[in-house]
């Protein structure tokens, strides 16, 4: 076993994870954009693009398994590769959330339901910004960032509750929109879950650096829900 080869493989895998992260990040932003623009064709492109994300996910998984089998990593390297396997899955799931939002955009089509786009855009921007920084911290082993990023999840939760209330109010006033409103709840749910998955990525960063498996506290507000 060559130390150099193992290091090189790990760096390649980390780069692949960052690329998958950027694909997923863009997919979330694009899906929300298609919803805002009521652009069915673009939403279909985002929906189909999920195949690319899945293919990348499997390629990374394969790369990790081959590295585990051929390089027999130990200690920190083993922890890192095990963590990358988990993060890879988290990213694939976030990709599915983007696909879900694109699906809603296709269903809603030209409906004149007043979508609270400002808050939804804010949720998407916040969640993708958290994802971007969390992956940077994961690759750099930045413990400080790994502890601070999950705290921003509260902001996304707050936005979720605010949009949820707006949608429900609109649903009560206009029962004819119940279907569309229900679909929109899925959109904000997916964005809220994206931020939650970012928290899981941060937990894996802590695991790589310290070897500890921790779980960031769920805020009391969320427990009350």
């Amino acid at each position: 076993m060559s130390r150099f080869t193992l290091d090189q493989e790990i760096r390649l895998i980390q780069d692949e994870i960052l690329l998958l992260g950027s694909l997923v990040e863009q997919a979330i932003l694009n899906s929300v954009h298609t919803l805002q623009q009521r652009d069915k064709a673009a939403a279909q492109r985002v929906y189909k693009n999920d195949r690319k994300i899945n293919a990348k996910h499997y390629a990374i998984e394969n790369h990790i398994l081959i590295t585990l089998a051929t390089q027999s990593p130990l200690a920190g390297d083993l922890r890192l590769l095990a963590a990358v396997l988990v993060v890879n899955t988290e990213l694939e799931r976030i990709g599915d959330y983007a696909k879900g939002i694109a699906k809603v955009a296709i269903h809603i089509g030209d409906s004149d339901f007043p979508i609270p786009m400002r808050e939804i855009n804010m949720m998407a921007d916040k969640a993708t910004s958290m994802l971007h920084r969390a992956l940077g911290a994961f690759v750099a082993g930045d413990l400080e960032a790994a502890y601070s990023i999950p705290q921003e999840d509260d902001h996304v939760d707050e936005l979720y509750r605010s949009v949820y209330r707006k949608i429900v109010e609109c649903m009560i006033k206009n029962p004819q929109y119940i279907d569309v409103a229900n679909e929109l709840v899925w959109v904000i749910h997916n964005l809220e879950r994206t931020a939650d998955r970012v928290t899981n990525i941060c937990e894996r960063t802590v695991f790589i650096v310290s070897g500890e498996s921790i779980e960031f506290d769920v805020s009391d507000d969320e427990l009350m829900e």
Partner: protein
Amino acid sequence: MKSRFHLRILWPFILILGMSLIAFFFLYPFVERSIQQHAAASGDVNFVPLFSLFFLILTIGLAVGLLVNIYYTNQHLTILEDLTDAAKELGDGRFQEIKFPENVGDLPEMRELAEALQKTAHQTEEQFNALNKEQTMLTAVLGHMTDGVLIADDNGKVELLNATAERLFRIENDQAVGRSVTEVMRHYSLVEVWEKTKNGYPETITMELGSAHKFLQVVGINLKKDLPGRTMLLFEDLTQTHQLEIVRRDFVSNISHELRSPIAGIKAISETLLDGALDDPPAARRFLVRMDSEVDNLIQMVNELLELSRIEAGRSSFDFQRSKPCELINNAFERMSLQAEKAGLNLTQNCPGNLPQVFADPARISQVFSNLIHNAIKFTPEGGQIHLEAWKDENKVVFMVRDDGVGIASKELKRIFERFFKADKARSGGGTGLGLSISRHIVEEHGGKIWAESAVNAGSKFLFTLPATAGDSQD
């Protein structure tokens, strides 16, 4: 030249001197005995004193020779040592600290060595300075470029990142150098451009970067001719251009819509008239009145557009004169009070008498007041209040039109001065959407500033400033 004494060169001379003295003292008895025996046998004169003298002269000569030799050797070693120090400074690139020995002795080889070293130092310093200057220029150019620059090698390791690219990717050059392009750029489209360019297929793309929503044009350049194995990516920030493009698109879309509505009305009326309404004079008259009103709308819009275009192009003439702020407010108040009354609104004014005069074109400022009060009337429910006020703020006078109407959402507030922008399209029908844009231009032509403060359902305040003339107050 420093004067130093090199002890290490003494030992051969001391050895030779010692050997000579030992030889003298050891050999002297044998030589003396031999000479005396030879003199006794032959009856010749005694040569011993002569022999001693010879040895003495030889020893002194040797000692003097040694001392001279020590002096010269020491001198040359000192020069060599100074030249070595100079060569070391040259090697370290400390050109200012190089000191060549003033006296390099009489040896031509030593002089040549010193001259050659001096020449090398001079040339190296010149080349170094030229390179330094070039490097400084390059750094300055790269540092002040509005475009981002990234250079990476064939293995995908970043070698250079300029200041703009540092800001774009939120990473400093020192941290980025040696890292992979993926780790630095963090976007699959950018990595794709790098890969294609590296493989000899340079590409240019336009893309949106992440949650920061920056619009970039990325140009890949293969540097194989100048820097083999290197690829350069240029990033041009098109965010502002993109926003302007949105404004332009909105403008075209708005103007088309605004022109289409009255034209469609006129078309419908003319068709109705042609279809037989002409034969019914009372109905025909009603239609013609409506047609006239639509044409008036069109004329107003075209006039306002022309006016806006003239002001924007700086072709509009202004008749600036010393004006009393309270007169400006009062004129507007009197002209608009009837309209406000009809709408069931209470129009009030408050203007302190001691305000300084302003330098303004009264007709144009009246137009600004008309636009602002007209908007306030339109967006304030019956029974509401519209208040006009002016006060002094440093060297300017602030004018305010305040209402307690429906207000404006914060995200729309920054766009209301754009051409054709209507905050509430459903309720603002009838207007051209050009009034606030024209008002902004008029106020800015006066050297003032216009802005709005508002929140939904909390009323609106439109404020503008005009520069006060020096000295007097109006009353």
